[in-house]
């Protein structure tokens, strides 16, 4: 097998570079030797066992190194650089980058700025409204897709299609749909009431702009929730429903007492994913309204992008993204604690 040829190369490397002292914990994690069925397949007699072990460790390092380096380069480095940014004054519009250390000044500026506070309010309201709406409608769709009826495959396929599109594409799509001349929304609304024709959705009225964003976002993300919940529904055994029926439970009772509690794992996953996505909402807003009208649809992500990239205020922008990351971490921590299985 190919497995047997590798350690010989690695053995040579192992002699050249003695193992460093600080690593054994990581090595142990990477190379758990307690897997008898697999390990025995390519384990040699005891005489070469030791060399074999170090060879495996070397190979483990070597194979895991690219991923670790890539992750450090594309996730770790920007994160740390951003933390550095947040504590310095760096603004390209001043002509140069002075790199002045300013302590917490960026954070106090941010908390004092009405723009940031209102962006926070908007983002939180948007998050609450979207997760409630998405979970309720997603639940209904999941129940619909779970029912056995003619055309169920077609229903499932058509619900999946919006989910399979990139957010940028679905945002462009809905921007076109809400366009007064190219889209269908105004045309269909005009059929109900003549005053509803030619409404400009995206950049005139705050509420209409938010409605458009909300619809585009839900259209794309409700299918995701529905598919997750459908998967959760499918693993609920049938006996519990039969038992509930025997006990004379109505549909609503068996839904709230059987389905919902047993769906808890799927619900918590859907809730965490949707909350984080909604908290960090950016692309829908960027494509559809560009933060307008005025700055009434600016979310936290959008404000941070605007400060960092457009105003080139790297310190303030960095502080904003740090707070956003902390917010997301806090929310996921709370969820994980709240949804921890009570049985364990």
């Amino acid at each position, binding site marked *: 097998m190919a497995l047997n040829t590798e350690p010989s190369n690695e053995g040579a490397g192992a002699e050249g570079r003695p193992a460093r002292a600080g690593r054994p914990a990581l090595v142990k994690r990477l190379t758990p030797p307690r897997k008898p069925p697999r390990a025995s397949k390519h384990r040699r007699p005891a005489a070469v066992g030791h060399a074999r072990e170090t060879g495996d460790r070397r190979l483990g390092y070597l*194979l895991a190194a690219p991923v670790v380096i890539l992750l450090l380069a594309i996730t770790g480095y920007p994160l740390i650089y951003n933390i550095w940014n947040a504590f310095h004054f760096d603004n390209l519009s001043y002509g140069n980058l002075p790199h002045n250390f300013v302590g917490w000044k960026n954070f106090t500026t941010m908390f004092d700025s009405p723009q940031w506070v209102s962006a926070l309010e908007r983002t939180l309201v948007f998050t609450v409204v979207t997760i409630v709406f998405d979970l309720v409608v997603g639940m209904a769709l999941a129940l619909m897709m779970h029912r056995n009826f003619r055309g169920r495959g077609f229903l499932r396929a058509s619900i999946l299609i919006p989910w399979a599109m990139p957010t940028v594409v679905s945002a462009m*799509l*809905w921007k076109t749909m809400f366009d007064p001349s190219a889209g269908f929304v105004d045309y269909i609304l005009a059929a109900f009431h003549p005053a509803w024709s030619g409404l400009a959705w995206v950049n005139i009225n705050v509420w209409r702009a938010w409605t458009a964003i909300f619809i585009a976002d839900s259209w794309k993300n409700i299918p995701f929730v529905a598919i997750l919940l459908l998967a959760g529904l499918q693993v609920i055994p049938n006996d519990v429903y039969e038992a509930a029926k025997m006990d004379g439970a109505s549909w609503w009772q068996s839904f709230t007492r059987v389905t919902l509690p047993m769906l808890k794992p799927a619900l918590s996953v859907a809730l965490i994913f949707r909350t984080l996505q909604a908290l960090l909402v950016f692309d829908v807003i960027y494509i559809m309204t560009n933060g307008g009208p005025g700055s009434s649809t600016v979310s936290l992500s959008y404000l941070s992008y605007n400060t960092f990239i457009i105003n080139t205020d790297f310190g303030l922008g960095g502080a904003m993204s740090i707070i956003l990351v902390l917010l997301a971490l806090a929310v996921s921590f709370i969820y994980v604690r709240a949804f921890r299985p009570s049985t364990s």
Partner: protein
Amino acid sequence: MTSAVADDVPVPVAAHRTAYRRRQFSAGKIVKETLFYLAVVIVVLIALFPFYWILRTSLLSNQQVAAGVGGANGIIPSHLSGVAYENVFTQASFLTPLLNSIIVALATTVVTIIVASMAGYALARL
């Protein structure tokens, strides 16, 4: 895959179905079924109509799009033209972005699979 699992399980739906067959003339059942299928149709329409609309708009000429929706350019336009598809290849610089996308897609696929399978092997086997 998922549907296969569900099909194998004789769920309450099956029981419900036989019950439906037995009492076929129960008006309440018929109304319920009708409402259910109506809901399904609405959901499918909401999910798919934007795609139809994009297809419809792509088959109109610029003048038709500028004229707005209505009249001959209604939900089902009376006159179609493939001029937009011609323009994509003749006027807009469509081929370079297409090539760029293909290059990016291939490169990221190759790099990701190599790097991830190496790490996956290391984590699972060693």
